[in-house]
C-alpha cells in the first residue's frame, strides 16, 4: 500500500487553490524563447551597474556572514534616508524598519503576526496573487472587494466601508496595482483614510512596491503620509521593481515599533536575515539610485503610451493606467474568455500575455499586458494584436 501523502498535508495549505492559469503558464513556458513575452511581472532592465558593483565589492571584502535579524544598520539607515527624501516620511532604523526577503516576505509576516484564526482581511481585487494566499496560509479569512474599470480600478471608499465587519483585522492595499496599473493619488487615498478614521481598530498593510513607477508626475505617494493613521499603517516596499533588482530579494517593512517587532520575531526564527550581499547593494541604490529610477520610469512611460495606442488600434477598451508596468484591457468584445483569448493569441500570433482571472474572479474578461519588455517587442506585439482582433472580428461577422 502506498503512503497516503494527501491526508498528511495541512488542510490550510490544501484549501488554497492552484493558480487559475496553470495550463496557460505551462504552455507559455514551453514556448519561451520562440514568442514575445508581455507576460512578465518584473523589469526587463538589468540592475544598474553601480548597484551590482556595490554587491560585488561586499563579496570581495568578505562580508559574507549573517547580518542582524532586521538588517544591517547602514542598510536600514540608507532606506530611512531614501524614504525621507522621496516620501518625506520619517522612520527610525532602530525598530521601525525591517529588511525582508522581497516584498512577499512582508505579506507573509504581516499575516502571521496579525491574524488569529477566523480574522477577516480585506483584499482589493484584481490583485497580486500572494495577497489571498498568505492570508489563507495564516488561517485568516480573505474578504474580497472587486474594484471596477469605470472607477479606474481605484478602491472606492463606499466599497471599503461595505466590506468592513467587526471581524476585520486589516486591509491589504496594493497601489500602484499589479495587474491593473491603477494608481491612487493622495486625494484618492485621503478618502480611504477618512473611512479608516471611522474604524480606529483596523490596520492597513500598504504594498507600495510600484510607487516609484507613477506616470502622473513621477512623485511616489504613500498611505503612511497621513499622520492621523500612520500609527496603524505598515508599508511594504522594496527595491525589486523601481531599481530592477528582483533577484536580489530585498524588500522592507516600515511601521510603528509595536507592529514591526512581532513581525521581526517571525522573521528572526524563520528567515534569520536577508542576504548580506544584497543588503550592501541596496545601500548604493537607496543613496545614489534616483537617476536610474527616473531613466527607467521615463522609458516605461513611453512604452505605456505605445501599448495604449496599440490597444486602441486593436479595438480593445482600456482605462488609462498611470502606474506600475501593466495595462489591463477588456477583451469582452471578442466574445472569448480570458483564458481562450490568451491561449489563442499565444498559439496563433506568438505573443504571451496573462489572463486576467489569474488575479481574482473579477479579472475575467480582461488580460494583463506587461510593458517590461523592449520597445521593439512591444511594437511588434501590438501590431500582431491588431491583426489578431481583426481576424477574430472577421471570423464573427
Amino acid at each position, binding site marked *: 500500500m502506498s503512503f497516503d501523502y494527501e491526508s498528511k498535508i495541512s488542510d490550510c495549505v490544501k484549501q488554497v487553490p492552484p493558480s487559475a492559469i496553470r495550463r496557460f503558464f505551462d504552455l507559455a513556458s514551453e514556448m519561451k524563447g520562440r514568442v514575445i513575452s508581455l507576460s512578465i511581472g518584473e523589469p*526587463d532592465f538589468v540592475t544598474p551597474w553601480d548597484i551590482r558593483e556595490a554587491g560585488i565589492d561586499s563579496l570581495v571584502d568578505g562580508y559574507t556572514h549573517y547580518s542582524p535579524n532586521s538588517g544591517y544598520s547602514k542598510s536600514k539607515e540608507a532606506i530611512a534616508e531614501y524614504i525621507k527624501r522621496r516620501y518625506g516620511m520619517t522612520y527610525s532604523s532602530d525598530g521601525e524598519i525591517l529588511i525582508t526577503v522581497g516584498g512577499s516576505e512582508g505579506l507573509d509576516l504581516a499575516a502571521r503576526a496579525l491574524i488569529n484564526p477566523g480574522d477577516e482581511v480585506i483584499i482589493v481585487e484584481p490583485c497580486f496573487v500572494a495577497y489571498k494566499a498568505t492570508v489563507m496560509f495564516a488561517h485568516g479569512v480573505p474578504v474580497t472587494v472587486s474594484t471596477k474599470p469605470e472607477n479606474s480600478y481605484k478602491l472606492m471608499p463606499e466599497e471599503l466601508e461595505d466590506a468592513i465587519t467587526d471581524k476585520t483585522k486589516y486591509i491589504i492595499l496594493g497601489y500602484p496595482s*499589479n*495587474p491593473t496599473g491603477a494608481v491612487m493619488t493622495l486625494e484618492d487615498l485621503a478618502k480611504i483614510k477618512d473611512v479608516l478614521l471611522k474604524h480606529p481598530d483596523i490596520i492597513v498593510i500598504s504594498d507600495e512596491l510600484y510607487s516609484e513607477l507613477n506616470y502622473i508626475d513621477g512623485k511616489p505617494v504613500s498611505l503612511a503620509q497621513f499622520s492621523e493613521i500612520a500609527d496603524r499603517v505598515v508599508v511594504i516596499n522594496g527595491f525589486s521593481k523601481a531599481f530592477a533588482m528582483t533577484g536580489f530579494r530585498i524588500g522592507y517593512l516600515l511601521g510603528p515599533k509595536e507592529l514591526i517587532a512581532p513581525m521581526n520575531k517571525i522573521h528572526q526564527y524563520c528567515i534569520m536575515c536577508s542576504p548580506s550581499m544584497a543588503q550592501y547593494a541596496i545601500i548604493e541604490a537607496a543613496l545614489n539610485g534616483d537617476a536610474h529610477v527616473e531613466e527607467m520610469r521615463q522609458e516605461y512611460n513611453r512604452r505605456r503610451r*505605445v501599448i495604449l495606442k496599440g490597444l486602441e488600434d486593436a479595438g480593445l477598451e482600456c482605462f488609462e493606467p498611470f502606474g506600475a508596468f501593466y495595462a489591463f484591457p477588456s477583451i469582452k468584445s471578442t466574445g472569448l474568455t480570458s483564458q481562450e483569448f490568451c491561449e489563442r493569441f499565444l498559439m496563433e500570433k506568438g505573443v504571451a500575455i496573462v489572463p486576467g482571472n489569474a488575479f481574482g474572479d473579477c479579472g475575467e474578461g480582461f488580460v494583463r499586458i506587461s510593458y517590461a519588455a523592449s520597445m521593439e517587442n512591444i*511594437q511588434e506585439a501590438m501590431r500582431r494584436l491588431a491583426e489578431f482582433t481583426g481576424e477574430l472580428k472577421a471570423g464573427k461577422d
Partner: protein
Amino acid sequence: MIDDIELLNVLENNARLSSAELAVMLGSTEAEVEAEIAKLKEDKIILGHSTIINWEKIMPYNCIGMIEVRITPIKNKGYDQIANILSKYDKVTACYLMSGGFDLMIIYEDKTLRDIANFVNEKIATQEGVLSTTTHFILKKYKANGIVFESPDDDDRQAVVL
C-alpha cells in the same frame, strides 16, 4: 509640449523611429514632433543621424588610429586653425582639443596601419605649428557610442511572472 531632452535621448538610441512612432511614445502629435526636430536641426543641436556598425564583423581589416598631436598655438587663432584643417579630412572621424600632455586628439580610420602612418607623416607632421605626434592603434572595440559590442541579449526571466 515635448521635452527636448527626452526627444533627443530617444533619437540618440534609435534614429530610425518615425515621427508617428515618436509622437505616440512622447504623448505628442506628429506635427509637433516634426516641428521640434526641424527646430533642433536648425539650431544645429541635431547634426545628423548615423548607424552604429560593428565594422570588424564585415571589414576585419579596418584600422583605427588615435593620434595625439602637440602644437604651438597660432597667434589670435589658438588651436582652431590646425584643428579645422585636420577635421576636413573625411577619414578623420573625430578631432578634440584636450587638456593634459598634448593638445589635439585625432581619430583616424583607414584600411591599414601603413595608411595611417602615411597620413601622420604627410598630413599632420607637415602642418606648420605641429611639434610632435604619438599614434596609438585600436586593437579591439568593446564599447562605442554607448553600445557594448558583444553583450549577451538573452532574456533569463521566467516565461510568466505574476
